[in-house]
């Protein structure tokens, strides 16, 4: 063969070099060098079949498992692995949401009634704890929702785990429903949890009596209700976005874009034409308006609050519709 004398340069520092021949028909001059394995270990591997004859629990137990998987993932390993940035941010928001708790306690200890009145439980403060725009609904809660919903539906398709999970006796709607509940619960832990802390910190630190509690408790419950409304709305929109997209980030970004973008848009219109009606397309502002009406805080919008309520309901209805349509047509295979 003529190629045999093709030189590999003398300077080429090659140790295991060899001139490779064409695929087959290789004749005499095969060169080879071999390195020996340093150790030789063997492995005897015996398989013992262990049958199992337990009974499987019914539907509610399976659903509980799904819920638990997602919720506990926030706290410990071994359940759904939420990303580290997400967890860090959740902690940050949890702490940041407790500024009013901290200030209440601080002023209660200092005994400054004037400052205390500024920070203690009251209509406007309860409203602000859940529905205030800056910073809570601009930087905290929508971001929390965005981080949580990002990929929560689409991950199963991108990981391929949907094929594994849906081969279990699980109903898709149960599966997504439990994810919904889990995501909402995590947000509730932050938003409603800190709200409760705030309320009880106030009672404890100021030694409030029953009269005060009876007086403010309906207001507190209303705020809780508004918080639930906020969580449900953000979660519905977020999960609907998560179900229509494949990516991990798209739903989060889209949720932020919807919440902040519509608000900016409405603000432009208000600035230019002095009309607040466009705030109806902003989920946050609609909820805030409903909250202002229910809690009794200062109204910041010109249109009737019932319109905002209708708008909030419409947001939820549309999102849940999209979600359920997507879920029922969900592919089980990997995309």
């Amino acid at each position: 063969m003529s190629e045999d004398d093709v030189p590999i340069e003398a300077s080429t520092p090659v140790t295991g070099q060899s001139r490779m021949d064409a695929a087959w028909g290789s004749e005499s001059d095969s060169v080879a060098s071999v390195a020996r394995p340093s150790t030789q270990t063997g492995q005897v591997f015996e398989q013992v079949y262990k049958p199992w004859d337990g009974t499987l629990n019914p539907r509610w137990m399976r659903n509980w498992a799904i819920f638990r998987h997602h919720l506990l993932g926030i706290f410990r390993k071994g359940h759904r692995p939420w990303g580290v940035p997400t967890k860090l941010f959740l902690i940050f928001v949890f702490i940041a949401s407790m500024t009013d708790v901290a200030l209440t306690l601080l002023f209660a200890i200092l005994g400054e009634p004037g400052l205390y009145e500024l920070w203690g439980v009251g209509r406007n403060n309860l409203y602000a704890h859940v529905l205030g725009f800056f910073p809570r609904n601009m930087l905290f809660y929508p971001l929390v929702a965005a981080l949580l919903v990002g990929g929560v539906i689409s991950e199963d398709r991108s990981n391929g785990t949907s094929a594994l999970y849906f081969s279990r006796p699980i109903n898709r709607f149960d599966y997504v429903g439990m994810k919904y509940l889990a995501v909402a619960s995590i947000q509730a832990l932050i938003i409603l949890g800190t709200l409760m802390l705030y309320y009880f910190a106030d009672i404890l630190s100021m030694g409030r009596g029953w009269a005060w509690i009876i007086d403010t408790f309906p207001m507190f419950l209303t705020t809780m209700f508004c918080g639930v409304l906020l969580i449900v709305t953000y979660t519905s929109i977020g999960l609907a976005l998560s179900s229509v997209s494949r990516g991990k980030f798209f739903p989060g970004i889209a949720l932020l874009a919807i919440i902040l973008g519509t608000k900016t848009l409405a603000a432009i219109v208000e600035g230019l034409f002095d009309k607040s009606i466009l705030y109806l397309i902003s989920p946050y502002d609609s909820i805030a308006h409903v909250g202002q009406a229910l809690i009794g805080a200062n109204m910041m919008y010109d249109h009737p609050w019932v319109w905002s309520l209708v708008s909030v309901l419409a947001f939820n209805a549309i999102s849940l519709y999209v979600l359920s349509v997507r879920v029922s047509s969900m592919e089980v295979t990997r995309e």
Partner: protein
Amino acid sequence: MIPDVSQTGEAVEQQWVPQPKAPVVMLNNVGKTYGRYQALGGVSLALSGGVTGILGLNGAGKSTLFKLLMGKLRATQGEVRLFGTNPWKNPAPYARVGYVPENESLHDWMTAFDFVTTFARLHGLTRDEAKLEAERVLEFVGLTDVMHKKIGRYSKGMRQRAKIAHALVNDPDLIILDEPLQGCDPLARTTIMNVIRELGRMGRTVLLSSHILSEIERITEQIVILHQGRLLAIGNVHAIREQLDNIPHTIELECSDAKALARDVLSLDSVHGLQFPTTTKLRIFTHHLGEFHKHLPTIVVENNHNVMNINNPDDDLQTILGYLTGGSR
């Protein structure tokens, strides 16, 4: 043009000229580590021409090796040279390289024809040239009838072939195929194997990795065995086996009269042990496989034995790999 900021020393020439005497692929003491984990350690290797199978278990460093060659990864030590050029610094050698990556993802939203055409144009072909080339390579891999359908609708084998087509479009001198046969049905596999053999026969350098040993064997005898990032063996599979002569080779013959055949075989120097598992079976131990096989047919024919079966249980890739890697995972 685009400044090559990371370059050291002289500017990169635009008209890339391969170094004429350099081997197509050369690795000198190349290592790649990820933190504490060593994917490849001190591999030296030079290849030009022919089909070479890179063998190794999952995680042996085959893909790392290819990615180093394709400039996807930067070697933590040693030199990598593709046609004499460092591929991490300069993508010019890829004008002669076709690469079929391991991962299954493809641009599902385009047709195979568009896919191949687009990537042909990255070689500097015009639109029309690229279309011609695309038609040719797609024909070559047998996708002509479906080439205007979306890749997303292709089966695994078709996707694999589309990938190969895109790699062949520049008529490369070096073709690197990372697990090309994985997930293909027998028909597709046979087709792809034909393609690879064909390329080898044309004098192209083909590197292919696989862990389906019987298939490598059908394509080539030239192998490189990697294990845990180390180069374990390189060369002809039989030559490698022969070098490992401290373990006797076993040859099993099935014939009508084992004892009679044994008597004749015994005269050969290379035989150093015999065994009779059954009356019609003869097991021969030898240190010199080639020597023995050279003489065996003559003995059989001369003495008119009736040999039905010759089996060589040690002489396949699987055994070699098992032996070299010490049977561990």
